[in-house]
Every structure is written in C-alpha cells, then in structure tokens.
C-alpha cells in the first residue's frame, strides 16, 4: 500500500494532473467565495451544466478533442444559458430558482443527447468526451495544465488588484455604486472569473460536480474566520488540497472518476469545519450552550435557597 502510494506520488503524470486539479481547486475556492457571498451558488451550477451541449457541439464542429475549442464551446453555451435565465426571470413570472433549474436541466439534457450522438458516430477521437460529465483528470495533458495555470495567474491577479472593489461591492453593492465604482465593470469581471473557473475545471471535475467545488471550500473556510482575506485564503487552500487528494485517490484504482472523489474530499472538509470550527462549529456551540444552562441552573438554585 505504502509503496503503491509512493509510486503514484513520484509519477510525473500524477504530479502534473495533481497540480492541474490543485490549481482548479484553489481557484474554485477563491472565486467561489465571492459567488457564495453574493448568494449566487446556484448560478455556477446552472452555468456548468449548461456548458455540456457547447462542449459536444464544439467537438462535432472540429472533430478533435482540442481543450481550448471545447472550452470556447462551453463558454458560448454557458453565456446563452445565462442570457436565457435572465430573459426568463425578467420577462415572465417564473422565479429565479425555477428558471435556473429549468435551464440547467434542459441544457444538460441537450448535452447528453449530443454526447450520445457523438458516441454512436465512430471517431477514434471521441474517447474521453464522456469524462466531461463526471470528470477525468487523468485525461489532462501538459498543455492543459499550462492553460489552467495561465488562467489561474490571471484570475488571482484580478482578485488582488480589485480586492477593495470586490469586497465593497460584494458587501454593499448600492454603496459601492454611490462611490463611483461601476457596477457593470465589477459585475462583468466577477462573472467572467466564475465562468473561467468553471470552464477550466470541467474536464477534470465534470459539469455535474464543479459547482460543489465552487461552494464547498468557501463554506468550510467561512467557519474558521470572520475576515474576508482569511476566508479567501483558507478556501483556496481547501480547494487546492481537495483537488490534490481527490486526484491521488482517483489514481489509486482503475476508472475512479476524479470529480466525485474531489467533491467527497471537499465535503469532508465542510463537515469537519461545521463540526469542529472553534467558535461557530456545532460542537463549540453545544459546549457554550451547556455552560450557559449550567450557569442558569446554579442561579436558579441560588434563588430557591434564598427563598427558603
């Protein structure tokens, strides 16, 4: 077992793939913090599901599994889906949650149809396209990781550059606007960052579960700190280690899809944080409540004794 683990760890392909999923986790954690604080967790879910038909159709067009093209396809169908969601909520009486699930499931269904059609059409290149559903990190190539790292550098730079603007806008958008910070600019950059994060994560984590990677780390991190800077950093670290550990576990057996394993790891982080976080955790809160009760009971007893 230990030797096996060591062999995997020293394997170049594993290191490459783990680096890739690690960066994806890091970015999901950082960018996802803004998404959850803006209460847009579900939007990521809709966007990622909606990317599937775009991936399929892009493949149909170029007949090759060229990641960059597939990503462009994913972005286009993601944007169409977002526009549809906005259109539905603005022009009809359908509420946002219904519009989200409607678009999410219909686009995902369409994606499955396209993917099945591709599979029935013999083309040696199609192998691995299915991995976009549940994610298969081992399909990652060196240039994919380079692309992911490149996007990562850009996104993290944006977060540092717009730190104060994003913080103020996320907390109080109206106030931020009165200060003269264009909501259109900030909104656009934030949305593009979420889209890009989802897109680069699609291949290794898959369209179904990438949103869990966006939401989970920030929820776990939020339990440990009350400061945005620390929450962002902790969420990034949680995402990074989830990606690496998930890839490791998935490399240990044949045909273990990476996405679900990563998400299970994230979920463990979330549950552990919800339970054990020092101030907000369930256990800490339970202990505090106990102490309060004890204190209250002693006081009651004192009162009783005083009466008799």
């Amino acid at each position, binding site marked *: 077992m230990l030797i096996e683990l060591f062999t995997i760890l020293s394997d170049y392909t594993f290191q490459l793939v783990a680096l890739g999923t690690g960066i994806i986790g890091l970015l999901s954690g950082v960018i996802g913090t803004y998404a959850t604080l803006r209460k847009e967790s579900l939007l990521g879910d809709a966007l990622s599901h909606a990317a599937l038909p775009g991936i399929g159709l892009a493949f149909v067009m170029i007949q090759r599994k060229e990641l960059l093209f597939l990503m462009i396809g994913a972005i286009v169908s993601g944007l169409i889906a977002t526009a549809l969601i906005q259109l539905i909520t603005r022009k009809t009486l359908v509420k946002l949650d219904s519009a989200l699930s409607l678009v999410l499931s219909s686009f995902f269904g369409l994606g499955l149809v396209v993917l099945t059609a591709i599979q029935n059409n013999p083309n040696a290149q199609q192998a691995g396209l299915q991995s976009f559903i549940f994610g298969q990190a081992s399909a990652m190539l060196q240039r994919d990781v380079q692309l992911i790292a490149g996007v990562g550098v850009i996104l993290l730079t944006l977060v540092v550059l717009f730190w104060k603007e994003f913080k103020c806008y996320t*907390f109080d958008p109206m106030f931020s*606007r*009165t200060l003269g910070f264009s909501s259109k600019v900030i909104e656009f950059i934030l949305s593009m960052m979420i889209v890009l994060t989802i897109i680069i994560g699609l291949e290794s984590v898959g369209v179904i579960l990438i949103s869990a990677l966006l939401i989970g780390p920030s929820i776990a991190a*939020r339990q440990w700190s009350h400061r945005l800077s620390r929450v962002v950093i902790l969420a990034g670290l949680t995402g990074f280690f989830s990606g690496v550990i998930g890839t490791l576990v998935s490399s240990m057996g044949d045909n273990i899809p990476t996405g679900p394993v990563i998400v299970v790891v994230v979920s463990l982080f979330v549950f552990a944080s919800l339970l054990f976080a020092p101030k907000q955790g369930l256990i800490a809160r339970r202990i505090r409540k106990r102490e309060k009760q004890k204190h209250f009971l002693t006081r009651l007893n004192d009162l009783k004794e005083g009466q008799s």
Partner: protein
Amino acid sequence: MKKESAIQIDKLTVAYEAQPVLLNISLAFKKGKMTAIVGPNGAGKSTMIKAMLGLVEPVTGEVVYQDVDQEAVSYKELKNRIAYVPQNTSVDWDFPTTVRDVVLMGRYGHLGWFKRPKNKDREIARQMLLKVGLPSFASRQISQLSGGQRQRVFLARALAQEADVYIMDEPLAGVDMKTEHIIMKLLKQLVAEGKTVLVVHHDLQTVEEYFDDIVFINQEVIAAGPVDETFDKQTVKKTYHRDRNLGEGE
C-alpha cells in the same frame, strides 16, 4: 432661493416597469439644513434618494448639486462630496468583515480604483468610530452588533467620506434610544458645520424636535418647507391617507 439650495430636483419622474413611483417631483434642499423626508410606505422616498444618487435612472427630470463654486453639477461630478447611508437591512451582516473595515469603506471613494487605504484613511476611520461611540468594537465581526450599533457603523462609514451632503435612508428605524441620541447629536454637528443633511424619517413624533425642514412625499410632493410652517395635522393626513389607485404595493 436657487443660490442657497445645495440640491435641486427638477421635474423628476421615476418608474419601475412603466409603473410610476415618483411623478414630476421638484424640490430644493437648503445648504446647512436638516431636512426630513416623510411619507407612507411605498410613497417613493427611497426611490427619490436612489435617483438623487444615480442608482436609478429617471424617466425624465434631473438632480443637480451645487459645488464649492456654487456651480450646478451632476451627482457624478460631486460624488466624493456626497455620503449615503442605506437602510441597514439592505446588507448581509454575516459578511466576513470587521467593523473597522466597513468604516474604512467610506474612504474607498476618495481612493478610487486599485489604490489601497493609507494610514491617513485608517486614522479617519478610527476617529469616526470613536465619534459614534464604538471605538472598542473595531475588531468585532459585524454580525455581533445590535441593530443600533449597525446603524452607527453605517453612520461612521458615511462620516469617513468627509462629505458636504449626507443622504440617509431611515437611520433611526428600529434603533435604541442611545443610538438615536448619538446619531442626532452627530447630524446636528454636521448641520452646524454647514453641511446638508437629508433623512428619510418615519417617526412623525420627533419631526419638530429634530428637523429644520420637511418634505412630504406620496408619489408627488405634497408639501415642502420649514417644519414650523409646513408640519401640521392636515398635511400629514393628506400625505398618509391620499388615495392612490395606481396599484402600488404598500
């Protein structure tokens, strides 16, 4: 009249989805005065404020401010001299940030894009927190504050803007007596310094005690002027019991 007014609203009409919220509002707010804006729920008070701050686009009409040279300018040109205090229920107080950082946001407008707060900005934030009586709360997470303390944090943030005009949406709604006292003391100080203060206000009992001028609004301007001349039972009744058949929610 025109010269001494800090803000002039001219024939302002605002609508949401072709539903008029404000109809042909013309008003002038005097420099160095504290003005109450009163009216029933859904009368368009918050909308008027938002139109004044460029947060909603009017159908017609305009809002002009007077700059230091008494020239008429738009909100955009004067935004760093205007401070806004939103209703404190408009934000999520579970947001991971400290009291100090929220007050520091009042300096962001002066800093502009990309620039980080400097020691001077931190010092101003610290002083404003002292003014609202919360110096020991600087490192607290904002969710640990009471309603009144939240409102004082918002006021401190506005004070940190060091503006000439203060526009506040219900700053006294649901706050404790201590907070109300502190807020009113600080607003009176601002007015004494020659600043212009507009307050959306709900408590008609305290209008005479607190304000110089009053504006009654219910979609249209019902009445406007000095409190001792304008504030009477009849006008209140006219404002609050006006039949509005436009289907607007209460």
